[in-house]
């Protein structure tokens, strides 16, 4: 397989992971106006939790779902007992989530030590699948597929269900949504838990590719931020498109300008900020 094709496949895979990570951030940010700087920690925590579960003999997919639930519970506690006390206080929310991310990182370092931990690819998805006469790594295809399924599922949830309509109403105008009888505060907790679950789940399924190591949180968070700034907050389509743009830039940037990969990654974000500060698919300036 040629280098370029391999890079493209890796880009799509990373894009899929980033979508799972950033869509939660984007929804939380769009609905609650909370910049959850602990989102990268959710990703890392999910991955670490699953390593323990898998080491105890739990099946990979069960571990992914259960670890996600663990992270969701943690996110729910954070939302309910800390963030809930700080409505509209942006500075305080930034500090609390940042503080939490430091604490999570240190606890992970204490519990799982500083050595990188590899998560094994599930047995059924090892090897390559041939597609149009070429071999592709099966697991990477699976991640892309999972991301697309989640994108479709979230779209259906947001656009086709009553709950989704309530969430959209909350994003557009929380005060008005309250007036018409939507319990916005319960929505907040639900969306926060959902976002945390997605991040934790993404951490686990990203494990076989990225492995888990201290600092993973700090590496993923800026990527998620770029996705959200690029795509626009609170927009599902924005997250999806932004994720794939970032996925491609990151992989191709790293292959072509290894020393400047980070700069290449942030350039389009800067351009979008200058030309269209609300993001490609955002409706209003953040």
């Amino acid at each position, binding site marked *: 397989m040629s280098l370029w094709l391999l890079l493209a496949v890796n880009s799509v895979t990373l894009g899929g992971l980033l979508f799972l990570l950033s869509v939660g951030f984007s929804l939380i*940010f769009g609905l609650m106006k909370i910049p959850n700087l602990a989102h990268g920690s959710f990703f890392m925590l999910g991955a670490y939790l699953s390593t323990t579960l898998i080491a105890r003999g739990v099946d990979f997919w069960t571990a992914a779902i259960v670890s996600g639930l663990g992270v969701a519970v943690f996110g729910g506690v954070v939302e309910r007992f800390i963030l809930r006390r700080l409505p509209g206080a942006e*500075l305080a929310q*930034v500090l609390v989530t940042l503080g939490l991310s430091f*604490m999570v990182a*240190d606890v992970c370092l204490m519990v799982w030590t500083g050595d990188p931990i590899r998560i094994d690819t599930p047995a059924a998805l090892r090897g390559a699948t041939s597609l149009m006469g070429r071999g592709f790594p099966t697991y990477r295809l699976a991640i892309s597929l999972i991301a697309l399924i989640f994108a479709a599922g979230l779209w259906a949830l947001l656009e086709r269900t009553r709950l989704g309509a309530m969430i959209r109403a909350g994003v557009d105008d929380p005060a008005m949504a309250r007036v018409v009888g939507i319990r916005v505060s319960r929505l907040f907790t639900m969306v926060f838990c959902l976002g945390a679950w997605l991040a934790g789940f993404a951490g686990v399924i990203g494990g076989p590719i990225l492995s888990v190591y201290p600092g993973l949180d700090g590496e993923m968070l800026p990527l998620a931020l770029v996705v959200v700034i690029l795509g626009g907050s609170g927009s599902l389509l924005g997250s999806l498109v932004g994720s794939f743009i970032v996925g491609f830039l990151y992989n191709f940037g790293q292959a072509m300008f290894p020393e400047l990969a*980070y700069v290449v990654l942030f350039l389009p974000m800067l351009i979008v900020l200058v030309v269209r500060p609300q993001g490609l698919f955002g409706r209003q300036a*953040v």
Partner: protein
Amino acid sequence: MKRWTLAAVLAILATVPLWVSGTFYVNIASQILLYAIFALGVNVLAGYAGLVSLGHAGLFGIAAYTAAKILGAGGGHVTVAAAALATTVVVSAAFAVLALRGTGLGFVMITVALGQIVWGVAYRWIGLTNGDNGISIVARPSPFGLALATPRSFYWATFVVFLVAIASMAAFVGSPFGAAVRGTRDQPRRMTALGYNVWMIRFVAFLFSGFWSGVAGLLYLYYNQFVSPQAVALTASAEALLMVISGGTGTLLGPIVGAALVVVIKNVASAYIERWNFVLGAIFVGIVVFMPEGLVPGTVRVWRRGRGR
């Protein structure tokens, strides 16, 4: 009364190397002063302009890296200082143009991203910055023939810069421009309606803030005689913000108290436990939840309540 207190505090600070024994403590005092300068710079934006920046370690680091590079190329110390500060101000201007596309949360996220770019360059562009190994410099400068090699002389030099920083902050806060900056924080629309150019006011405040961050970065380089990507990491920006918040945003003394608190805890904590980051995070959460207005105003509040007023 207030004036006498200030004079007494300054007198105590000026004589620290005389009554504090041990170079270790003098060095900690120097660190407190240099981080206080950094925190004062961050406070211009976070406190007075209401713009929370999580990218200021980038500016701090750019000053340090520029100075280290020019020193390495054989530049004199005057050139180094001038070039480092000029570069920092130019980069601050670029940061400001981009970051001011957003306010509130948008501003925070953009500054995070900008700070991470600087970090990425420092960490990955090995040809320029020597990557994770950082850059060392040979010696501290000796302005006017005074060698700054000893901890005491370095402390006094830092103290002089610190005094200039405080004086400039006091002048800034008291000036009409300072009032305009606070106006853009509290009532941006009304300020616009009154004919002020809100964007320009924020832009200038950003430059002022960036300049003092650069000064602190330069002092940091001379203090450590070394700079590495750690100095520009998100954690460093967060620490600076913690200093501002813990002391009390939008006050003149708050950032100084905050800097002292963070530097002392960091040194004490790291002597006993490895988990400095956990302590830092816990302090963040604790302060935000229990003393949202910061330690200085918070303590005043608790003290007043204790006295039954």
